[in-house]
């Protein structure tokens, strides 16, 4: 297995890093240009899924075990909700980002969106990878009649 698909393996190894970098680019430019957590999360997940497709599920799960992925899904939602709750502790409405910098609301808006998008990104990455793991980890035995 290791000897086959040399080109695929080399290209994948170089691409994975770039894909992750691009995911971060999309993530952090989401607040004032096209992009954001949803897109970044999917791109990030693509890096892991590509690695998994080429090197096998077992290899990618050494990098990102399934239990970590499940925790990531929950963590992202908590980051999102936590941002809102933080706003509530500051005495404003849920998700009122302006409350981070009450004397300059629009700065707070920017940082608030960053936190929330981070949560979205984590969850989307987690969900996408989790879906891949769930399906890839469950290959049914093919009978003779199934062909």
């Amino acid at each position, binding site marked *: 297995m290791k000897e086959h698909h040399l080109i695929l393996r080399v290209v994948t190894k170089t691409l994975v890093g770039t894909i992750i970098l691009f995911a971060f680019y999309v993530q952090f430019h989401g607040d*004032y240009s096209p992009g954001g957590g949803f897109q970044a999360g999917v791109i990030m997940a693509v890096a892991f899924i590509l690695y998994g497709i080429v090197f096998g599920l077992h290899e990618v799960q050494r990098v990102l075990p399934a239990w970590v992925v499940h925790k990531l899904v929950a963590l992202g939602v908590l980051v999102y909700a936590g941002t809102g709750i933080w706003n509530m502790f500051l005495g404003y409405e849920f998700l009122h980002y302006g409350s981070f910098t009450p004397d300059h609301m629009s700065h707070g808006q920017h940082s608030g969106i960053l936190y929330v998008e981070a949560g979205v990104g984590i969850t989307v990455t987690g*969900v996408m990878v989790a879906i891949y793991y769930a399906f890839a980890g469950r290959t*049914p035995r093919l009978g003779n009649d199934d062909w």
Partner: protein
Amino acid sequence: MTLEFFIGHINYWLFIVLMMTGFYIVVACGNLVKKVVGLNIFQVAVFMLYISISKVTGGTAPIFPIDRMGKIKADPEIVYSNPLPHVLILTAIVVGIATTSLALALIVRIREAYNTIEEDDILEIDARTARAENIIHGEAMGGRA
């Protein structure tokens, strides 16, 4: 109905065609995976409806330039498209993905339990189980069931 009216509303015609295609597949196809495909087409039709709503004739991307003080300087001369439906559809797409993956996960489990993904076969197996249950549990009731 003039040709202009038809072409001017092409998005909406396509929306109707897509929606009905998807809906028909969901209703008519016996294969569970194909049903999910139909469901996806059905949902994509709705995305198209929303995106069509948001388009303003001659409108550009709704990104307002901001000056150094953080004040919005929207040029009243420029027509902007409506960004809100796009945001809504982003949410709807996410819902669609969740639905699709859940449906596929269910299909995997159904395949493991029933060894088929054809609706007719599943209905037949279910009906057979139900008949068997009726025989066991009905007779014990003195035939009243």
